[in-house]
């Protein structure tokens, strides 16, 4: 088995044992990137020398006896929404083209401290706004399962890179499903930690009260290892939780659901759900029962309004968060001919530098916050948020975790929903409630849909700081299904 097919845990062990160097591991992945990148377009930035420099430094640290974590020497693809001192950071927007941050995000810093080697910055929907990675200013990323299909979004570059064996691990951010949905449609594992469990410092903000950094991996244990590597309290983020990281690695190793109470969210199924998705989900429910879980149906009627509430809250926050992109201090500047005012230059730059989805959301958010509309839109959406959090709370009195399909459909064709924002927004139907409530949630592969042979994801939701429960259930499902399939689901993916 070649290096690129190994898991992160295996690679970390090989490097730790001195059987292979971080440089060799990085080279193998850089070669793979060079080979398949023309088909996938997962990366916005790769700099072989910078990456090999990092790998050499890790080898040096290990040689000098420094004790690094289990992922030392393991390469990672980093979503281009986290600031990095040694690589440009653009959020896939023209407005930040070529921007070199003078500081590292906390997630970036912790990756480096743990000895991970950053392969490059991955593509995304501009400023993480989207569910398909088609909203990137630098062209769409393609799904390794079917190059005409979307890899999910907004973290589509990160999901595709892992599914295409360009990297064993990647980072993502999840605001309304931007980790779980891409993980589901590319057949990998993606986790949205509890809000505040992973630091937002240096994560270019889309919607501050929802954005959550999280891991992608090809298996549950790798995701947990990465989760543990970059999570935990950060004094630079006021919304960061000052509590120990839940023991996710242990939970991933355990993978046992006997006696666990599992709630199936009644509202997430049936009409609007692709039959193949529904079928695989139903099988997963049966599987959990067969593994000893107690499965009940739970109704969360307000979850139906999560989507509209989200599409008020997120745009409202983004309209303010993106105001800083004004051509004054960094980034693009358009139309500064010496006669135009700052105000005109700001408006011309923002019109030229932002893509249509970003403009749409900025205007929607501006509208929702405007005097006269605030109470009916933003204010009411915040109340819905409370109602949804209460429904979760009530549900978690009855069950330990809730489950649903991660997405209503498998990967859809590139271009299909590009001009229909409302259809696009439906991709996040099942993932958004956890963001509104700040809860933990994971997506784990549960098979291929019969209609199109594309991956289906199972979503497991848990209360705040119940991240370990997500991993425990996901690991159990993974173990059972892989023994049924005779290996990971990804081995079914066509060769690139």
């Amino acid at each position: 088995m070649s290096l690129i097919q190994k898991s992160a845990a295996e690679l970390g062990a090989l490097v730790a044992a001195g059987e292979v160097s971080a440089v060799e591991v990085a080279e193998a992945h850089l070669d793979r990137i060079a080979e398949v990148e023309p088909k996938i377009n997962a990366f916005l930035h790769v700099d072989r020398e910078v990456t090999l420099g990092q790998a050499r430094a890790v080898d040096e640290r290990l040689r000098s006896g420094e004790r690094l974590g289990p992922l030392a020497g393991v390469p990672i693809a980093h979503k281009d929404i986290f600031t990095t001192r040694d690589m440009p950071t653009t959020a896939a927007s023209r407005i930040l083209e070529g921007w070199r941050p003078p500081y590292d995000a906390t997630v970036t810093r912790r990756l480096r401290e743990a000895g991970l080697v950053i392969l490059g910055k991955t593509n995304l929907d501009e400023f993480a706004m989207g569910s398909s990675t088609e909203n990137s200013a630098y062209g769409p990323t393609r799904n390794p399962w079917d190059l005409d299909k979307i890899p999910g979004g907004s973290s589509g570059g990160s999901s595709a890179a892992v599914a295409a064996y360009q990297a064993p691990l990647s980072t993502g951010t999840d605001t309304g499903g931007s980790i779980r949905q891409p993980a589901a449609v590319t057949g990998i594992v993606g986790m949205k930690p509890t809000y505040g469990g992973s630091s937002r410092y240096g994560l270019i903000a889309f919607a501050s009260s929802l954005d959550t950094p999280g891991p992608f991996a090809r298996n549950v244990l790798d995701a947990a290892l990465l989760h543990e590597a970059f999570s935990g309290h950060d004094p630079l983020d006021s919304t960061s939780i000052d509590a120990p990281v839940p023991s996710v690695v242990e939970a991933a190793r355990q993978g046992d659901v006997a006696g666990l109470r599992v709630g199936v969210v009644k509202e997430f199924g049936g009409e609007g759900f692709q039959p193949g998705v529904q079928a695989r989900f139903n099988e997963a429910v049966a599987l959990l029962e067969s593994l000893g879980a107690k499965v009940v149906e739970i109704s969360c009627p307000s979850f139906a309004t999560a989507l509209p509430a989200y599409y008020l809250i997120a745009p409202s926050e983004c309209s303010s968060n993106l105001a800083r992109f004004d051509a004054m201090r960094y980034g693009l500047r358009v139309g500064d001919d010496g006669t135009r005012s700052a105000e005109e230059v700001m408006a011309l730059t923002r019109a030229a530098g932002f893509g249509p989805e970003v403009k749409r959301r900025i205007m929607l958010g501006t509208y929702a916050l405007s005097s006269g509309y605030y109470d009916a839109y933003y204010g009411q959406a915040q109340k819905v948020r409370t109602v949804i959090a209460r429904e979760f709370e009530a549900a978690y009195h009855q069950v330990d975790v809730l489950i649903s399909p991660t997405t209503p459909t498998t990967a859809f064709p590139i271009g299909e929903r590009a001009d229909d924002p409302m259809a696009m927004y439906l991709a996040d139907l099942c993932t958004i409630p956890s963001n509104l409530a700040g809860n933990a949630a994971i997506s784990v592969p549960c098979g291929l849909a019969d209609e199109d042979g594309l991956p289906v994801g199972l979503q497991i939701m848990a209360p705040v700081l119940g991240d370990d429960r997500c991993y425990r259930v996901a690991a159990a499902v993974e173990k059972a299904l892989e023994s049924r399939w005779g290996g990971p689901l990804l081995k079914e993916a066509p060769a690139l």
Partner: protein
Amino acid sequence: MTTTKMSYDEALDRFEPVLGLETHVELGTASKMFCGCRTMFGAPPNTQVCPTCLALPGSLPVANAQAIESTIRIGLALNCSIAEWCRFARKNYFYPDMPKNYQISQYDEPLCFDGYIDVEVDGETVRIEIERVHLEEDTGKSTHVGGATGRIHGADYSIVDYNRAGIPLVEIVTKPIPGADRLAPEVARAYVTELREIMRSLGVSDVRMEEGSLRCDVNVSLMPRGSSEWGTRTETKNVNSLRSVERAVRSEIERQGAVLADGGRIVQETRHFHEDTGTTTSGRSKEEAQDYRYFPEPDLVPIAPDPAWVAELKAALPELPSVKRKRLQAEWGLSDLDMQAMHNADAIDLVEATVAAGAPAADARKWWMGELARRANESGTALAELPITPAHIARVTELVASGALNDKLAREVLEGVLNGEGTPDEVVDKRGLKIVNDEGELSAIIDEVLAANADAAEKVRSGKIAAVGALVGGVMKASRGKADAARARVLILEKLGVSE
């Protein structure tokens, strides 16, 4: 543009003014409101900036605990209620000075609300009600390049320094103040003066108006006498000295009076005060409404001050300036008028410190309000800025009391200290200013004077004791003022064999 004005008296005959004041105070914290950058005034451009206060993508704010505490202390000093739970809010508007293009401020949940302070003007006590005290952040500073005046209008471009961006700013807003009537300008000034002293006594800000650490916006409206319906108000921005506060109110009353008397109407707008002319000119009209789209700041969590902690802060507040003035006035036995004069001259703290350093209150007051006030006035500096300390004054009064100096010499000593010649004792040494107490030396001088003024000596000897004054004067002159005049008189009479 010329502005028609009505005389102040005429305007006041016809209209009653309603005031409102918004004051911004930069807190004297070591670091900024939401990041760890230094807050030093006058540092080289863009040396006190970081990802957070430059609003680099990805950066986040974390609130400064000291700024929260200072704001609560200010609120308590202004008799406010302290919120049990409140949030920061974003005030959204684009401006190049403001890196995020929103200001982190507070909206409908200020940290402190519903307070008051009393100020005294012309022997009358006026209660100023405080609507709210909230915490926000300052903006950067732009310099306008090109154009004739260095002003924003007509400039070719601007250059921006963000050192000031993110310095904690406390905004103190009064409720509308009716009833100040003819004293409105003085009331406005007295209020800002009082605020400044409260800030000083709390030690939360250096409140230097000239450095912009205390800035004032003045709202004025007029209503016709007999009416109870308030008029439209204007907001005059950035009035940056106590004197300007008074002038801005007066000027705006005169201007609005003329407009209204002419049948015109007042436009709700922002106006700008010009130090040079003492008048205001129109700025942005508020009718093209700013919509700030306030919403709770999601990057910061709510503030819920522990009531026990607030009670502790309240108990530990220093004596407030108005209370202290009353106490000192009683202790020092001064009239209202004398006390007011000291207050106006900013001399109270100096006198108090001088008394604390050991001087009798009367002497301390005499020096600060006499010789030193004259000096300060001559050089156009504030009393506190004179290069002399309360300890110096206390030492001088001690030397006078011990007979080592007389008043004339004491004044010379003060001059020496003000000239930078050292402490009072050093000046006495260097200038040789000790009173001649040496009996031998004094006796010799007296002998000389008696010899040179035989006529006068004879008169005294013959019983015209009043003539001794001329001889004492001669001794003082010969000793260049250093002789002890009383002792000289005794010795002269002795030498002439005359007893009183």
